[in-house]
């Protein structure tokens, strides 16, 4: 099949190439999430983090990584559903800023007779950057996949129509 215009060729390429861009952005989001939780879990601030919430945080991290990885595989083959999953978990990453980091940043503890902020502003900025970047990557990956998947579906429909016509 020959296509004369560049835009059509670009669309037609989608039939045979994987959406590596979205998949790789998602994997990068997983890496940034790992940097976030490593920073939290290595904090040495007495028993502040030893509570129910941190347990949920651990489970959520595992779930996030699993879902993000599955989504990265899904978007490779232009599955539209995974775009919404990625956008969803991206929004979840933003919400997470307001749970553990915000609370830890605004809490002070007395450790060895000295008043200490649980999460210093340096660490706070670092974890926020990790979560925001992770969120942004998930959302961008989802949107890119959404556009590409729609373009591919339209192109395929057009080809099917032509095939039926001939």
């Amino acid at each position, binding site marked *: *099949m*020959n*296509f004369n215009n*560049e835009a059509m060729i*670009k669309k*037609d*390429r989608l*039939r*045979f*190439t994987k959406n590596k861009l979205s998949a790789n952005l998602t994997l990068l989001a997983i890496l940034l999430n790992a940097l976030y939780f490593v920073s939290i879990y290595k904090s040495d601030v007495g028993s502040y983090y030893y509570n129910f919430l941190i347990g949920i945080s651990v489970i959520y991290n595992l779930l996030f990584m699993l879902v993000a990885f599955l989504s990265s595989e899904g978007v490779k083959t232009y599955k539209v559903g995974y775009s919404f999953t990625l956008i969803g978990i991206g929004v979840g990453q933003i919400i997470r800023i307001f749970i553990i980091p915000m609370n830890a940043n605004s809490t002070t503890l007395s450790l060895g007779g000295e008043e200490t902020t649980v999460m210093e502003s340096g660490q706070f900025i670092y974890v926020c950057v990790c979560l925001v970047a992770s969120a942004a990557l998930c959302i961008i990956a989802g949107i890119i996949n959404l556009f590409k998947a729609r373009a591919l579906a339209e192109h395929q429909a057009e080809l099917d129509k032509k095939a039926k016509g001939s």
Partner: protein
Amino acid sequence: MSDLKLQHLDKIYDNKVQAVFDFNLDVKNGELIVLVGPSGCGKSTTLRMVAGLEDISAGNLIIDGKDVTKMAPKDRDIAMVFQNYALYGHMTIYENMAFSLMLRKENKNEIHQKVLSAAEILGLTDQLNKKPNQLSGGQRQRVAMGRAIVRTPKVFLFDEPLSNLDAKLRGATRREILLLHKRLRATMLYVTHDQTEALTLADRIVCMSMGHVQQIGTPLELYDTPANLFVAGFIGLPPMNFFDVEVKNGELICESFKVALTPEEKGSLERYEGATITLGVRPEDISEGGDISVNVFSNENLGQTTLVNGVVGKHRITCKFREWCTYKAGDTVNVSFKKKHFFDKKTTDAISLR
């Protein structure tokens, strides 16, 4: 596409073993040359020298007027198709075909066009999203060819590409290669040990033995006028029958039969009067009826033809008859020779008829 010149090529390995001796060949633009010979005759080594996978010990290799003897394989603009396909198992067919162009960082849209067009030629359009392990052997070999086609190289090299396929698929893929050659008009060098492939595909055949070129010619030339005993025995299936005969008074005398010579043959064999020469007769040039008695020991019916194997004196003989025969072991059949080939006993060269 381009012409190719192999001038006095030698291949000597580090252990001093010489695999190719003074190989000379001039391949014209768009020609399909088949290198044929038994295992170890140096045909694959020659092909690998052209590809740049083996160093050339002596001689020159010229592609399109340019000496590429010392040039790296990647700069020679040659594509090679291997016996074992050499496809990347983790890539789709599309990716396999596009891979070499991706490495060259060609425009992605152009790559796409080239891959689609090659896939269409080879009938692979519906297979582009599959992985190699989902395809049959013949389809995989077509992918390997597609990978060569997309590069539009100056010369295509095929190293026994059909050897891994079963007989039926081999026939079909052979026809596809022939059609491909007609369509692309590409310069192709094809190595095989299968003479059927050589005879059906080649514009010209190079028959090799022990590193030496025995004969270069069209399939008909090699079949009809073999240059020596080796070519005569190698080309043709079943192989040619050979008899040691004495030339005497216009006759060929064997211990168990006599054959009268035609005036033309008599003239050509004048200088061999009283000497022993080798008489060659193709199985298909033997017909029933005559004064040579064959003691049959097996009868193989092949449908349209029958192969009758037997003995004439101390010589084994195979006859190919164009009908369904029912000879049994121990039967005697009288035959005659239609076309004869003569070879010098000492030099093994063919004795040409005047």
